[in-house]
């Protein structure tokens, strides 16, 4: 089975190139992460990030056959051959499949991704009904893998100004939280032509999210809230 993998070592290579590797005897349930780990045994210089191996840590987002996926939960059996693997698009490449995610995390930090409250804390837990808690489902599970933001054309063109789907999903997670008391600040922070409104509902983000979350819907929910808030 052939794998064609993006290679680049800034100390050595003038420019990136694709390198082919052959692997034999892979069972059908092999995941891409296992396959490239086997390749790394043959060629130690191949670099990529990985940690949990089960789709929960968000380390190994990469572009596999043209779409952004987590290598550890993408079975090779689903993929057309040769399997073409590139780094997440639109981000500066550090080496091989490893990209610089500083912008991505900067945007994440910019939405103040933490609960803000003003009331004194009760001695026990704050109460939240199961229905209120349900509103966080589909938002809190994000693993910050960056598959969505790096598939979003608006984020490619304005990574410094447009917050991008992952950060906006986080913004929504706190706006929707019945315990959070900074909704108005959060909404007004997102107003303006870029931070939120650069999203043109192209839906790439939702199509690629490996956790089946829906950033696009989160974004339109924020837009609706913002309209209500202004009125």
């Amino acid at each position, binding site marked *: 089975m052939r794998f064609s993998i993006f290679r680049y070592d800034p100390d050595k290579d003038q420019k990136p190139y694709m390198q082919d590797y052959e692997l034999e005897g892979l069972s059908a349930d092999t995941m891409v992460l296992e396959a490239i780990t086997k390749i790394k045994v043959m060629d130690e210089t191949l670099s*990529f990030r990985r940690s949990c191996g089960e789709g929960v840590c968000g380390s190994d987002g990469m572009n596999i056959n043209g779409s952004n996926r987590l290598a550890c939960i993408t079975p090779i059996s689903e993929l057309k051959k040769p399997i073409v693997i590139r780094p997440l698009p639109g981000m500066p490449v550090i080496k091989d499949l490893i990209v610089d995610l500083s912008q991505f995390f900067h945007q994440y930090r910019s939405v103040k991704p933490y609960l803000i409250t003003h009331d004194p804390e009760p001695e026990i837990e704050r109460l939240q009904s199961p229905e209120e808690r349900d509103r966080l489902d589909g938002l809190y599970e994000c693993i910050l893998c960056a598959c969505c933001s790096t598939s979003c054309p608006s984020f490619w063109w304005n990574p410094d100004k447009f917050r991008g789907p992952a950060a906006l999903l986080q913004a929504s997670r706190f706006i929707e939280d019945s315990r959070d008391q900074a909704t108005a600040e959060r909404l007004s922070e997102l107003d303006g032509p870029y931070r939120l409104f650069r999203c043109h509902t192209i839906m790439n983000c939702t199509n690629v999210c490996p956790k089946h979350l829906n950033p696009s819907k989160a974004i339109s929910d924020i837009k609706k809230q913002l309209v209500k808030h202004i009125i």
Partner: protein
Amino acid sequence: MGVTNYATFGVLMNIRRRKFDSLVIGAGGGGLRAALQLAQADANVAVVSKVFPTRSHTVAAQGGINAALANVLPDNWHWHMYDTIKGSDYLADQDAVEYMCRTASKLVYELEHAGVPFSRLENGKIYQRPFGGQSQDFGGAQAARTCAAADRTGHVLLHTLYQQNIHAKTHFFDEYFAIDLIKDDDGFILGAVVLEIETGEPMIIEAKTTLLATGGVGRIYRTNTNARINTGDGMGMALRAGIPLQDMEFFQFHPTGIAGKGMLITEGSRGEGGYLLNKHGERFMEKYAPNAKDLASRDVVSRAIFTEVKEGRGVGENGDHVLLKLDHLGADVVKKRLPGIRDMCLTFLGIDPIDTPIPIYPTAHYTMGGIPTNRHGQVVVPIRHSAEETIPGLYAAGECACVSVHGANRLGGNSLLDIVVFGRAAGNHIIDFLKDHRYHRPINEASIEHALARLSRWDQKGDGESVDGLRSELQKEMEDHCGVYRTQDILDEGVKKIQAIQKRLPDVRLTDHSKVFNTARIEALELENLVEVALATVHSAAARHESRGAHSRVDFPDRDDKNWLKHTLYYAQEQRLDYKPVRMQPLTVESFPPKERVY
């Protein structure tokens, strides 16, 4: 000069140096909880992590965190304390357990206030589920003590703590690998030598206190539930600094790993009403633990599965696993309470637990042993006057530490609790230490040279064994010689095998000598730690002639309190063992004396 020799004068002069009040190595739940305590007290704190913080292994924890909130069934911290000590097979230190169980509710409320999206009950309180080894009234009816956010409790805990640290402006060094501690001749720890993974450049972080929170070491075994980064680096660093590791023979095998693959299926699935079946469709746990059944302690359930398979009642073509049945719970419960493990089964097995039982087998999971500390997180070792003298400036918390609250067997849901309780306690103690130690001590250059030599050794070129080859062998030998059931012959052979692997380490060579994001070099440094910790584990296991908790000896089937109610200490230098007494005296309540342990 073909080979970069960092350990030269020029490099020492030019190496980057940073100074902080406090250094935290590790950004899992333990490290982040400590950092938060420090940052909120305005200490100048740096957190170093070899992966971006939310990639830390805490993210994978599923089932929940224990605290006697009594939201579902009657409960109190004293019952929790009893269960923890019984679960530990009486090897836990009772002062530390009392402290942990007393503090638990407060800390879970704190996590809720910080934003953790716990699942909720109808009355708006935090959802709690039953977990193994939990009882009401000191061994009575099943308790429901595990606070959960669906089956993603570790994820929400880690993300929330990271978010709060962003808020508190903690200084993060993401993707920096800690190589070794810096130590002076008076025994003070002065910080660490770290490697910036992206540039391949070493750096010195000077600090008045250093906290190790580097997590567990499941990667010494071939089949395990751990992330690839769980390589026991902090334990290796401690051993190289002359500090012993405690109780390393106690390694927890989780009863329900996905057979042959190792991913974890949370105990919460049995807490929600799932149970185990052998090939005859028998609910075999009724035989082994008539009262608690499938919610007996983990060591008990793992041994039961092992026995069922060994005696020919295993399921599948090779009869090599058993089944975890959830299909009677209904689609709603599975989707609402166990969505993560359902995903995992769909992805890795192509089955839906809503209608198909899951093939499972015990899997290496949790390191009960670790760096010895007291309940303030201070690292303690026998030096001159007592068995527990502190190493000034050095702290440890989380899975890399051994307080010990888990003794010979950890209860599910107690580790997430351990990391926040003792992460915070360490933070508090560090704040006090900083008041008495206002200035940095002069740095010890010799100790830096040692660490840099360890790094430059991997620049050697030429033929040699590969990192992957030796690591695979290590994992296989550990699985074969230090598994669920143990005997003297097999353990002795294991010691020899791992010693032989250690001897071959100097012959391992890298073929990748590049600087930028060289992950092969990181794996090599990790392998050195794995070997050290594996040796600690087999040595400690071979010496303990009794069965206690997770350490089950076929040749010594009984617990022997007369000779073995004591903690093991293993020193890398001379591969020597020592022992120290268990702290049987709690803080305020009466001691729980050892009793026969039945579930």
